[in-house]
């Protein structure tokens, strides 16, 4: 017990230290890197949501970008067309994304595997068609501009550096809540459904309800990402929520490590920054990107988080060979 307390204390200390470092970050790097970090934080929120759907409940959703788009467009239309307070717009955006996911889940979640993947792919494409053509409401392919910034007591989150703190707080809260859900009965139910649907249903779980809940929860997270996107760019346009963005979210989760919270965030950051690191590849970048994700899928199916877990276990095994056998990758 003492050992566990010490472990928890060191974990909290590590978290506080890294958050402290994170809060100083914008002062240490240039504006462009803060902008990229903000983009990575926004993607983190979306990927944390996809982690409920794919990582825990095992459903391949290819419409995640359109769910984020629902949230983004809700806040954009609410604030620009109806002059709503942006905070109220945020709530409406999250609720819209969640409701959209819930309805889709009710309709489609009896389907499995690639059927669900194909159906959600169709939904994302349809979303883009509708949004691009409802010009009076959504601005069509020109998008909507003039979204106001969020403010607290007169402090406006209107610059990259200011927005960074908002995004950081949001992602930390989302990650903490995701961790709470993971270790709740709901989290265990999702994993049970993913691992063996038949066994889960025989054990008395309402499989469809669990899947719908996972999709709705993931939808609310995507809604947060969409709302953050709209309030960060202060502009929404259809192409940011197309199927290729959905595919990028999938790639982020796969690269970071399916079914891990840290992996979701890690994947979002790595894939956001990867184009910068691979800039020397020029236009070959996207070819290499696909192959890299593929390689990751074959060689490290647990993603970067799995690789770190593996390295960590090796290191611990050297410290005490006794404990090595007990270590298990936590899913």
């Amino acid at each position, binding site marked *: 017990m003492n050992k566990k307390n010490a472990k928890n204390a060191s974990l909290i200390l590590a978290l506080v230290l890294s958050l402290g470092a994170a809060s100083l970050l914008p002062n240490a790097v240039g504006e462009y890197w803060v902008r990229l970090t903000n983009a990575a934080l926004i993607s983190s929120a979306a990927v944390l949501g996809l982690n409920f759907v794919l990582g825990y409940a095992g459903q391949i959703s290819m419409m995640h970008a359109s769910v984020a788009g629902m949230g983004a467009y809700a806040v954009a239309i609410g604030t620009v067309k109806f002059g709503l307070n942006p905070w109220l717009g945020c709530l409406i955006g999250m609720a819209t994304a969640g409701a959209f996911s819930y309805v889709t889940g009710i*309709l*489609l979640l009896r*389907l499995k595997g690639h059927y669900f993947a194909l159906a959600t792919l169709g939904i994302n494409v349809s979303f883009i068609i509708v949004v691009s053509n409802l010009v009076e409401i959504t601005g069509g392919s020109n998008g909507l501009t003039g979204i106001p910034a969020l403010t607290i007591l007169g402090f406006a989150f209107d610059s990259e550096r200011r927005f960074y703190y908002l995004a950081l707080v949001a992602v930390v809260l989302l990650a903490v809540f995701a961790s709470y859900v993971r270790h709740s009965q709901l989290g265990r139910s999702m994993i049970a459904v993913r691992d063996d649907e038949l066994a889960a249903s025989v054990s008395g779980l309402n499989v469809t309800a669990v899947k719908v809940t996972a999709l709705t929860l993931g939808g609310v997270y995507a809604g947060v990402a969409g709302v953050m996107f709209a309030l960060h760019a202060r502009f929404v346009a259809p192409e940011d929520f197309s199927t290729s963005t959905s595919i990028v979210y999938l790639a982020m989760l796969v690269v970071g490590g399916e079914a891990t919270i840290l992996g979701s965030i890690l994947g979002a950051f790595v894939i956001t920054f990867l184009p910068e690191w691979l800039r020397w590849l020029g236009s*070959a970048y996207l070819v290499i990107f696909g192959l890299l994700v593929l390689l990751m899928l074959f060689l490290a199916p647990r993603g970067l988080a799995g690789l770190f877990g593996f390295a960590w276990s090796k290191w611990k095994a050297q410290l005490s060979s006794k404990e090595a056998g007990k270590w298990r990758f936590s899913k």
Partner: protein
Amino acid sequence: MQDLVQLLVSGVALGSVYALAALGFVTIYSATGIVNFAAGQFVMFGAMFGVTTVLQLGLPMPMAILLAVAMMGVFGFLFYLGVHLPLRTQSPVTVVIATVMIGLSMQNGANLIWGSVPFRLPSPFGDGTLTVFDSAISTHALASIGITAVLVAALYVLMQHSSLGRVMRAVAQDFPTARLMGLPVGLLLACSWAIAAVLAGFAGLLIAPMWFADAHMGDAIALKAFAATIIGGFGSVPGAIAGGLFVGLAEILGASYISSAYKDLLCFGAMVVFLVARPQGIFGEPISERG
């Protein structure tokens, strides 16, 4: 009336191309169980190989088409070696994500090789028109329908009435037993990939003269082929054909009678309705669970 005839012919022509793309997809699904999300990029490769042989090499048309189709066959074989073999033991989730990523790489690879400027691939049948019931019908549309019919018939004869087709069906039905019986299962699966690639290649060569050929043409065709497969019935050959024709007709008739901006919603709407109400599609076997 003459409008309707014209629209019906172009709808069926476009639908036959979708049907070919869907057939390539279904061939792989029934032979290997792999859901190939890169199927649209196969069609794009077919069109781009045509661009290379017809436009860039300037070969005589029949030879150029044959060479492009042969290149697709080789490509299918290579795809078996490079993608199917490592994917064979993976979970369905991994297979879906892997083929999506391969599709992304194929698309961007094509963008590197052929550039982003669209090509105008000429039709092997010229730009002429025929007059049927007072309406002008393009020869390319009629030839597309004819070629699809011939290919479907050839596929039927190959699969149902040849010894190669018999052993290929055996492998698809029961892989371990087929292997125990001493069939060269690897080679037969490679044949399935080559056949699928050739069908997709024909789809690409036939659709390129209707549209433009560029690296990004694959996505739109893939979505239509997926919709066709689901509407017709997953894994069913007659279903792929019926679904393809439905999607092609819905696109052409929807564009002219309903709305050209929303024409694609019609086919995705139909796809979702089928998924919810009749997941086995028109021709699929009734199975309570799919996945």
